[in-house]
């Protein structure tokens, strides 16, 4: 049993401030590095759930702050990737509930590109975007989340962990989601 290790912790916290500081700094560096690597994919998932880049960015950062806290407490994280996605997912869902957002697909993207990009395609762009958003809306939340996570490259087991379901169910959600999506277009 690893009792010895655990019992050492109070000493580290109490007496060896400097060593602790060094450890914390190293941990900070690791977390920042991880953030730089994982940010893009987590961000695009969070964006799809909350519908705005600002909030998505904030969610992802919050998830990494949580990660830092966990690692500092020597908590064990088995699969880092699905852990991060799960935290982002839960934060995003909470946020959505708080804001009573039911449809997350029709918010910021509307103004995002059409105003900043060349206005030539403004109308077309708008119409295409609306059509996509519409066909996504036919899917239920679970199906949408499964598809988005799968598109980020997560395995069924990982997706199941994030959403709290089983890998078999994931394959069913994916098939159903794809069918509805294909049918709507």
């Amino acid at each position, binding site marked *: 049993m690893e009792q010895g290790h655990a019992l050492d912790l109070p000493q580290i916290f109490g007496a060896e401030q400097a060593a602790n500081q060094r450890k914390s700094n190293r941990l900070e560096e690791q977390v920042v590095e991880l953030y730089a690597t994982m940010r893009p994919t987590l961000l695009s998932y969070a964006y799809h759930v909350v519908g705005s880049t600002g909030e998505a960015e904030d969610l992802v950062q919050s998830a990494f702050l949580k990660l830092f806290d966990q690692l500092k407490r020597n908590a064990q994280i088995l699969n880092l990737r699905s852990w991060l996605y799960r935290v982002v997912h839960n934060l995003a869902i909470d946020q959505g509930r708080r804001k009573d957002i039911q449809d997350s697909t029709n918010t910021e993207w509307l103004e*995002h590109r059409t105003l900043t990009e060349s206005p030539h395609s403004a109308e077309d762009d708008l119409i295409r975007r609306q059509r996509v958003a519409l066909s996504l809306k036919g899917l239920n939340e679970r199906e949408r989340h499964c598809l988005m996570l799968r598109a980020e490259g997560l395995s069924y087991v990982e997706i199941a962990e994030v959403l709290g379901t089983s890998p078999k169910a994931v394959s069913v959600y994916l098939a159903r989601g794809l069918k509805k999506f294909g049918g709507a277009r």
Partner: protein
Amino acid sequence: MSEPRKELLNPPHLNDAEIVAYLDGELVRSEVNASRAHLDSCWSCRSRLNEVQRRVDCFLDARADLLPPDSVLAESRVEQFRERLARHARASEEAPVAFHEQFAEWWIRLRNSAAGVMQYRRAVLASTVAVCLLVVMFTDVLNTRVSADTVLQRAATYDVSHVPVTGQVTRTSVRVDRVDLRTNVQKPLGTITLVRDSATPAIYVSANSSSGKSENATVKDTDQASQQLLPVMFSGDNSDPALVQYLATQRWVPDLSVSEFRRLVGSRGNTETSARRQDGSFELRYPFAAGHPSGISETLLRVDARDYAPTGVSIFTMDENGGSEYRFTRTSFAFEARTSEVAMLFSPGLPSEMISSRPGHEPELSRAIPLSYANSHATEAEVSLAEALHKLDSCLGEEINLFPMSDGSMLVQGLVDNATRRDAIRRALRGMSGPLRVEVYIPSELRNGSELYKPPDQSWPASPAAGSRTSATLADLSGTSVPLHELLYDHFLKTTSSTQDTDKQVALFSNEIVSLARQTFLHAWALRRLDREFSADRTSGLSAAALERIEQMRQDHRRWISAITRRQSEMLAPIAGPDATANISAAAIGQDSDALLRLAQEQNDLVRSLFTTSQQLAEPVTSLARLVTVLKQMGT
């Protein structure tokens, strides 16, 4: 010979989930082999496999469209996060560790060090639950310290959401008993039934007293309902004349609605109310002032704790014999279809004595009615609703109105093209705070327009969805008689090789101009509507945050207007030539949404007259110059 196994002869097809899992390499080895063998031999499954793959491609394309714009700020984001993390780390070191964190830390430590204990997890969990239960039982955590007014407010919300909508009536049945508080003997007094109509304020009342007297009538409003019901109800019981007198003066109708309960306790004097929760319902106690002339000592409203439906009213009286409790219990409440038989109840063939009420007395409506903007103030709820509709682009020409109602609730009412749109709107408005009724119809549900209220501001221009004058969205290209056709044709001839291409270019160009012009007009219309709805008078009581949200909506429309009109200008400038644009003094129109709407209307009309054949124009070139000027003005 033994019979061959069916599934070997004709192996089952793969289902969609299996195909997806197969493509994703998520099947276990044995399944993979079986699936592959089947796919090799089965055309239909292989074709479906390709179909699934096509859908995956499709989805990936679509997803790429919806991805957030690539941020050039990625680098700075990492830096910003580094600082945030450093701050976070410092804060977590400096701050005394919060109790729950400390607990979490110990919990993890305990778990890491003594994993063996975890086999008793169930026992630990069970004892924790037991302790929690004990705590709850002894500290009365669940006992509500909620105020009576809060519960009453929620019950009122319940009532508002249970008024009959078009095509329905509601039927409420109430049982009345008297309990002698000294002997505890219960004596039935009778039953009451009220049917409320959706189309008229009239109420059908029916009372049967246990003394054998009964009365059925359709009355004009709640006041008359009270006069009709009370004498019958108390005909067999004369123990409390003061009470009956009081109920008559208050014009109380025993339908157990919150509004009627408020009437009942309206003149009780200044007393403390209380609420408590018992057996799945709230009991709201409204004591009457001591020595109240009615003889009432207290009234009590029972409200179902699950949905806040009012279920019963008790009136307690005091006298030298000990007193009585008059108990009114709602035995049923139901929505019913307004069939022709039911409608007959409310038809004009009423006995005349029931229609003629006190002269000069305005009939009080039993239902909430929409208020005009002049008679109401904007609320935070209204801003939230407007914002939700704004996000759905419902403000752009859709015939949906937001009504502040006379009972303080909100009504969203309107007409949309199809059921998908209706559901999207309903979904978006679900979970909005505050009492709210959503009545969004599709054309087939509305037999005539009279079922919709008029917009809350009569001075509005007709909704752009209604008039056909502005609704053409495609240019008419059936002939060469479009006023500008020659000009356009010459213009595009320079850049294209064949006449077919030129025709196509002209068509595309005209279509885009017409649709942009309509967009501009719709945004200007929405902007002016916002100005009307949230005028300075109506928003005086709102918080700064709400005002900011309103301003945000206005800014959205302004941004769109300037972006679209700039695009229109760019498209038209080469056609109109340098002469037309030379001497334009773009007079600023500032914040005046009326002026903006007038300009938007003008440009839309001009575009329609220039790019469609609906009107013949004498001077197309002059009109074009005017159009360019208008657009320049709006683009600023």
